[in-house]
């Protein structure tokens, strides 16, 4: 399956891009995608406990199953206002 990964703020800086195209196995969850990302960019590991996620621009959970074509966003702790 093919997914688009969206990264913001410091995560975007670490990856050097705000958008990545990645292949993931069938049955993958958001957690699967995140684990692959941490393996690719070990500098992201400290965010394990503090990030949240979104699927197709809606708040989601790491346990959510992803589908082909989904946009998976990883959100470092937010600081708006």
């Amino acid at each position, binding site marked *: 399956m093919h997914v688009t990964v*969206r990264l*913001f*703020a*410091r995560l*975007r*800086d670490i990856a050097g891009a705000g958008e990545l195209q990645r292949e993931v196995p069938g049955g993958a969850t958001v957690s699967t995608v995140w684990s692959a990302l941490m393996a690719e960019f070990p500098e992201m590991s400290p965010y394990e406990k*503090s*990030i*949240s996620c*979104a699927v197709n*621009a*809606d*708040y989601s959970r790491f346990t959510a199953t992803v589908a082909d074509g989904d946009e998976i*966003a990883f*959100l*470092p*702790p*937010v*600081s*708006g*206002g």
Partner: protein
Amino acid sequence: MGAGTAITTTPLDAAAIVRTLDATGIGAVATFVGLVRDNNLGRKVLHLEYEAYEPLALRGLELIIAEVSEKWPAVRLAIHHRIGRMEIGEASVAIAAASSHRADAFAAARYAIERIKQIVPIWKHEYFEGGDVWIEGATADPDNVEARDKAMKAACT
């Protein structure tokens, strides 16, 4: 008139945002405007750059408006957040809460800014004298009851 929520790169105008709210039966409007401060944690701030995951940020703002409607059904709320580069003293966020009486207007505006800081996917990149840093605040989880209670407590005490 205009939408109750906006993520925009253009300068914010609180008075214009107030005018987007239906004034029927309204006796009080509380506005909150957040500004770029010239210092943070002992650092001399030069400017800020805000980044958003725009579709989700808009959804987050809508969610806050829905939460406010649930708690204060008569309150009308508008929230505009600016993104991009901002200089010291410029407005990064503007909230207008209109109600029949002042208490609910103040409370709703306070609740909204607390929730923005908790759940809306917007990030500030601080450029200060000697470096730059991404500011990281709260883990964005709209279902976190503890965070929501904390925002409500800030609004209602």
